[in-house]
């Protein structure tokens, strides 16, 4: 007897090395749990994240992608996350314009001191992805009729 | 070459301040300027409504501005109050969509503050040139010590009026020099004479007026000029009447030799 496989989302979290990755470490050392579906990729700065990476993740079957960086004004590289902010605003707007669920992408500013916030953010984001279910749209924009 | 501008005289200039208007027209003609009175204008409202939700009180100015926009885009004003109201309403139409939208919808027009509002004095300075005026003076008012009374309306708020330095204006002094007289700079020339309470609260008005007049006198002024009918009325009515106060256009006409024309 085959049990229907339960939906386990694939979620990629890009975290900047100086704030958010450290925030994730703090969440870890404070034992603040969040679902194992989240896998973190460390980048030097949120501005290193090319929209291409996010699309790539969706292309390869990710159900959600979240990008975390230092709070605006606190960037280790002073201005990196300001560019991130504009780029991601544009990318999200485009995805929405194409009719893709908005909730699948998110940007959050998490400082190195915000372990609690990191955990909360991840819990919320994963809950949202469960709500949205499997990502079919991005893989399915081409008409297969 | 004759310069032509739309002209907004305002109601007071048709009644109690006829001299202001009459001499302005005569002088303009002498200077080769055609002032084309807007065909159908109404009272500007005389005081600018500062609250953003006062729309109706702005409409007559909008109408005048819109008419001027279709007639060459420059509107010359003369009375300080009209200039103040029309300039600021014009700015509202350009910069405050919440006001512009309502006004436009009500009047069924599409006006967005494109008209240039020019005070007669600014016109003299920037379009004619005080040096040109000087060259056209036939009857220089030599030896007359004249204080300019600016009042509030032309100068403030300077960010909106953009008329002159609000604390140390010079345009009227330059004008006085151009017509051959001696300007007397006194500190109260930009302080309020209390015109708005000239009727209801004479005591307050009198206090304000004497502050202006005393200062002008102490600084050596023998007469004052103004562009504002309300100031003129108030300075005369609530002052000691020792200091003659006239409209600047009257002196201009006198200097240009067209006063009696």
């Amino acid at each position: 007897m085959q049990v229907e496989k339960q939906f386990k989302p694939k979620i990629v979290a890009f975290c900047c090395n100086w704030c958010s990755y450290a925030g994730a470490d703090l969440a870890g050392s404070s034992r603040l749990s969040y679902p194992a579906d989240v896998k973190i990729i460390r980048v030097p700065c949120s501005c290193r994240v090319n929209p291409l990476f996010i699309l790539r993740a969706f292309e390869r079957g990710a159900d959600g992608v979240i990008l975390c960086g230092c709070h605006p004004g606190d960037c280790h590289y002073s201005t990196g996350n300001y560019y991130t902010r504009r780029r991601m605003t544009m990318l999200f707007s485009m995805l929405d314009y194409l009719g893709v669920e908005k909730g699948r992408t998110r940007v959050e500013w998490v400082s190195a001191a915000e372990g609690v916030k990191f955990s909360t953010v991840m819990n919320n984001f994963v809950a949202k992805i469960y709500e949205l279910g499997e990502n079919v749209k991005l893989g399915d924009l081409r008409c297969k009729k | 070459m004759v310069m032509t501008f739309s002209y907004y005289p305002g109601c007071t200039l048709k009644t109690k301040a006829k001299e202001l208007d009459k001499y302005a027209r005569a002088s303009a003609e002498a200077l080769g300027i055609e002032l084309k009175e807007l065909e159908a204008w109404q009272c500007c409202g005389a005081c600018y409504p500062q609250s953003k939700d006062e729309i109706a009180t702005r409409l007559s100015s909008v109408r005048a501005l819109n008419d001027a926009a279709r007639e060459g885009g420059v509107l010359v004003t003369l009375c300080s109050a009209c200039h103040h109201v029309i300039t600021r309403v014009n700015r509202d139409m350009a910069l405050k969509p919440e006001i512009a939208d309502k006004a436009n919808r009500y009047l069924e027009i599409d006006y967005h503050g494109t008209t240039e509002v020019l005070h007669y004095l600014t016109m003299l300075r920037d379009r004619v040139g005080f040096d040109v005026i000087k060259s056209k003076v036939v009857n220089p008012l030599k030896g007359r010590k004249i204080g300019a009374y600016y009042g509030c309306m032309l100068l403030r708020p300077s960010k909106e009026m953009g008329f002159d330095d609000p604390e140390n204006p010079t345009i009227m002094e330059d004008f006085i020099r151009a017509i051959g007289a001696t300007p007397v700079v006194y500190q109260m020339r930009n302080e309020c004479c209390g015109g708005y309470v000239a009727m209801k609260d004479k005591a307050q008005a009198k206090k304000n007026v004497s502050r202006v007049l005393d200062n002008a006198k102490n600084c050596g002024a023998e007469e004052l000029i103004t562009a504002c009918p309300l100031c003129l009325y108030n300075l005369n009515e609530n002052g000691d009447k020792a200091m003659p106060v006239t409209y600047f256009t009257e002196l201009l006409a006198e200097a240009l030799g067209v006063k009696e024309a």
Partner: protein
Amino acid sequence: MHNNSDKQKDQVFRMTGVDTRKCMKCGKCSASCPSFNEMQYRPHQFVDMVTKGRIEELMASPSIYHCLSCFACVERCPRGVEPAVVVEAIRNLAERKQGGTYFSPDEVPELIDGTVPQQALVSAFRKYRK
């Protein structure tokens, strides 16, 4: 009562667009005011009372008719608070209430002296009654 004062505060803000909390209480408005001595509440007090929601008191005060709208305070305020605009908003609130008229046509004849410019009457009507 508290709710009402909050509502009035909002109303004043909507009318003026002025955030009175920007005031740093330097008093430059009152230092510049030509009607200071005539006013029960001085310009700086106006600003402070609006911040605190004491608008009823201001509406009831004759001070709202003593402001000359000369904009000296607006011009000189280092914080962009525009006290004259605030005063006018409160005057508007008072006048918009029934019976809020400060200046009535019946008063006109006795004030007219033959030289009064139209402008004085028009502005008095515009400014002091609804």
